[in-house]
């Protein structure tokens, strides 16, 4: 009898330990997945920061190489000796390699920025991403070919090739930046739209309230409706400006075009800010008596 009781207690204890360990495992796995998500986000951010850092470092190396190239070139043009020619060739090669690295790292940073952007149409994102990959591939091949140049003339020819190809970079860059800016504003627009709907829903709920002490006077209701209308009008104007900016994105192939997109988006944001402030007034009015 005693043995049976003891066995029963042991069995219960065993069940408790088992259930506890199962529960702990569950909690741990949830935490782990959350941590993984956070790590992913952190990784993405680090990727963007990392690529930006790498781009900046490569640009600094290019500037040093360019100074050496300039000095070697001046000496060669002055003395025109074989030694100065060889030194000029080496300095030019070094500079061209650093230049190609700058372009490649810049394109990688641009791609990271594009992947980080929110509210960008997937189709546009993919097209831009492919174009960036294409350019990275070209410049990588060009970088690999450079050491095979035997003379200064070959290096000049290779440089001119890169110069012609570089004409594709600026339009691509400003298009990516413009899409990124549009995405930022769209994110704000979505949040504002969500809040507007919630406020409207809440106010409708209050209007339909049956309890006497929770009803609002007609005067108050009119005031609230006026604020809400103002908010909606600003929201609509902001949306108009945003659409205008999105139409400009395809023409933002240079700095001027990009500046136009940014200034139009700023106007849209201004309207959204005003809309938010009118929403705040609506809430504030609801909180006050009379």
């Amino acid at each position, binding site marked *: 009898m005693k043995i049976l009781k003891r066995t029963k207690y042991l069995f219960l204890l065993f069940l408790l330990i088992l259930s506890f360990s199962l529960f702990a495992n569950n909690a741990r796995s949830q935490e782990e997945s959350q941590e993984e998500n956070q790590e992913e986000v952190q990784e993405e951010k680090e990727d963007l920061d990392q690529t930006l850092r790498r781009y900046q470092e490569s640009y600094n190396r290019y500037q040093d190489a360019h100074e050496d190239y300039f000095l070697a070139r001046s000496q060669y043009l002055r003395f025109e000796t074989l030694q100065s020619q060889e030194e000029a060739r080496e300095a030019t090669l070094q500079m061209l390699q650093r230049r190609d690295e*700058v372009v490649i790292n*810049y394109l990688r940073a641009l791609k990271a920025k594009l992947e980080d952007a929110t509210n960008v149409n997937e189709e546009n994102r993919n097209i831009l991403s492919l174009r960036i990959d294409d350019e990275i591939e070209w410049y990588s091949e060009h970088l690999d070919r450079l050491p095979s140049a035997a003379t200064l003339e070959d290096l000049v020819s290779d440089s001119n090739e890169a110069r012609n190809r570089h004409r594709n970079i600026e339009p691509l860059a400003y298009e990516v930046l413009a899409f990124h800016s549009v995405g930022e504003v769209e994110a*704000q627009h979505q949040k504002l739209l969500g809040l507007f709907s919630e406020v409207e829903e809440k106010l409708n709920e209050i209007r339909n309230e049956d309890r006497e*002490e*929770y009803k609002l006077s007609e005067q108050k209701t009119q005031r609230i409706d006026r604020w809400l209308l103002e908010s909606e009008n600003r929201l609509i104007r902001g949306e108009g400006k945003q659409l205008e900016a999105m139409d400009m994105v395809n023409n933002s192939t240079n700095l001027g075009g990009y500046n136009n997109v940014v200034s139009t988006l700023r106007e849209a944001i201004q309207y959204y800010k005003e809309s*938010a402030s009118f929403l*705040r007034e609506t809430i504030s009015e*609801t909180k*006050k008596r009379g």
Partner: protein
Amino acid sequence: MGKFVGIFNQMMRSVLQWGNKLIGRGSGETKAQKQPQTKQANVDSRGREVISKGEDPVAKDVQKLESVLQEGVGKAKENKVAKGVVGRTRQIILSVFGKLKDMVTGTSSGGSGTLGKVVALLIVIALLVILVNFARSFYGRVGGNGEVGNGIFSDGPSPTPIQVVQTREPSVYADDEEILQLERNIGLLENNMNESSIRETRLNPPNLDFNISF
């Protein structure tokens, strides 16, 4: 009060007329009517022009001023203080005018006629400026209703408009959790919009030298 204003106006008119004559402006004569001077001016031993007493406009004005001042002295005879002040003022004004007259006519030892005229003109302008400022500050002190104010250029601080915040009682929804949450979310969104940057400044295309030549 009216009489003193009248006397003051008369004085001003005389000063202005005298000033005009000093700078050679005639009293209402047109150019066409101006006759060339046929009479030869009197000249003293040093070759300076001497104006006879009968023609001297400055002397005439001094006489006029004396008569006006005597009138003032007569009025103030009853008041010893006023008599003393008016008498002293009369002496000062007469001496100034006398000196001016000497400078203009060149009878004093030191100056030439032209320089004297210029200096006299400057003194007249200075007196006018002082009088105008005095009149401005005097009229500035008296407000539209005749009340004495602080003048146009008032010293001291001006009142700052304080916005009176009208507080209203809270409604039943002041503590509603949903309302408060909405308010917080709107605040967060506004902060987000203020802080976010639309323009990306770190990824402008790099400035590279593609013009390589030897």
